[in-house]
């Protein structure tokens, strides 16, 4: 029996397809991170990093927006209003930049245990 390899043209097409898929996927994750920091990480399953970042960004951005647009004078006036707004906006920017800087990593899935001859004999 003659073992034939994959034709070079088919191999090349498959590689191009995989490459395009990986590029497209990375682009989506980047776009997700740009829209909502942390969501790109969540999208690949990097839950332990993505969730806290998304939560911190949403909380800080929500607080800064609420203080700027909705707070009554008692809270919006200087120096409290300005300081709180700067602190929350600063934290939101920090989490945003952090989400862009840290590359999303998919969780490593352990390979299934390899069957050995001894194990196969035992099963038999």
């Amino acid at each position, binding site marked *: 029996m003659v073992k034939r390899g994959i034709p070079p043209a088919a191999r090349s097409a498959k590689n191009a397809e995989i490459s395009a898929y990986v590029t497209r996927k990375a682009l*989506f994750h980047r776009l997700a991170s740009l829209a*909502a920091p*942390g969501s790109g990480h969540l999208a690949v399953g990097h839950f332990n990093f993505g*969730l806290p970042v998304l939560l911190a960004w949403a*909380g800080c951005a*929500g*607080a800064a927006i609420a203080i700027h*647009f909705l707070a*009554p004078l008692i809270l919006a006036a200087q*120096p409290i209003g300005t300081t709180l707004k700067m602190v929350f906006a600063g934290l939101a920017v920090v989490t945003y930049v952090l989400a862009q800087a840290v590359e999303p990593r998919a969780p490593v899935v352990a390979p299934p245990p390899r069957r050995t001859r001894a194990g196969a004999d035992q099963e038999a």
Partner: protein
Amino acid sequence: MLAQAPAPSAPGAVPTPAPTPSGPSTPTDDFGPDLKAWLDATKLQDKESAAKALLNLQRRRAERNLFSIDDVAGALSGRAETRAAEGTAADAIDGLDAAITFAPDSSAYQVRKATVEGKMGAGWRALSQSWANPFERGRLRSMLLLGLLITGALFAAGFSFALLLRYAAVFSHDVTEGLPGALKSLALFMSVLFLALPLAGFMGWGYLPFWWATLFFIFASRPERIVSLVLIVGLGLSGLALPLIEHQRAIEAARDARTLYLLADGGTSVDAEALVAERLAKDPSDAEWSLLSANLSRRGGRFDEAAAALQPRASADPRFDHNAAVLEFNKAIETNSSNYDGARPGFTRASESASALRDKATALYNLSLVEANSLQFDPAKATRAKGDALDAALLARYDRLYSFDRNGSMLQAPPDIVPDPMRIVAGALPEARFTTENAFGRLSASSPDSSRSPLPRRAEFQQAVSQVRYNFLLALPDPIHIPGCLFPVSPSLRGEARDSAGRTFR
């Protein structure tokens, strides 16, 4: 007027006759001459005359038992802020201190002072004090709720978008597998239709994140499922938060409530007196409003009118008895008669039989003043100690607010018993109530808030599907109303108001 500690009467002191204006007057009318003197003195940087004018204002305020005079405080604060803008911050702080004295419950002046001084601690103190004012507390609570909703909306959008990226392909594959062979060409269309079902059903884009969290629930990992559940439960709870925010808007719009609160809290205004008169005309037997009306007469300097309102009920209600005794006490002091026996029985009876602890403490405070002025110092101390045991903070407030200088002697004016502010305001505040309309029926076509939706809706289609929505989505609020609540923020929600001349101030 009374001396808390025995003070020698000035030999040249001339008793001041009680003013008897014919009708109600505003605080600005009564305090106008002294206020003008203060404004002129500060303009000319004459500190001595300014201090004298302030002492006169304080004396008049103590004699009238006015706890809060917002008009006077506003004028003082306005001049102080002008001076701060001119670059003389130190002078501005003096003016703002005076404004705080004349409106101690309004944290707005304390915030302005903190702004001029640039002190963070003063700002925090003002913020913590504002929780004691029900109107300020409502504004802050409303803002916190809105901030929480914005945070939740941002988080839900980000999280659901991540779920979409992660599981859309798996979902599409499952849809393809589930379709029979002849319909497999429709797989992509069916997948997109499922994912955009809230838009296809004209429910609004606000549902999309929650729909995705629900749709991908079976594919999600355990932590993702927990977060999805929290988001969906949060969406249900937001249906209760939105009516609370709208209720706060109704409170802001209820001008009578604000006026009555100011009145019940020790202020006065012609508008408020008209409200009280109207209320009393409806029910002349109402003791709370009668007491408030008598308080207002005294605050306006109409002492005879106050006495006429108090005397008929003095035997039936110890609070009326007490306030009538206060007027007797005033007369004794103004005529330098040193005859306090007319006031003592009323204070004694009120201190024994008043129902509220606050009223008992007030009566004990005034009784201690009578005893001190009668040179009975040990009984005066004992009576004051009893009052402090009941409500030390209230008596300290009386000491601070109703003391004034007359002819070099520090005197203390006797405070009135006032009705419970919230009983006076209660009828003027709109009632908060959760109904199927405001909490759970936000999807129905008859919802009055539908006009605020940012998306165009077709009335005829809405009519057709409203019953279906109501049946299937009864427990869900409409998230597209959240932006509707956010952006048309009324000036009153931001703490702004307009005066009669149309000027906006905060």
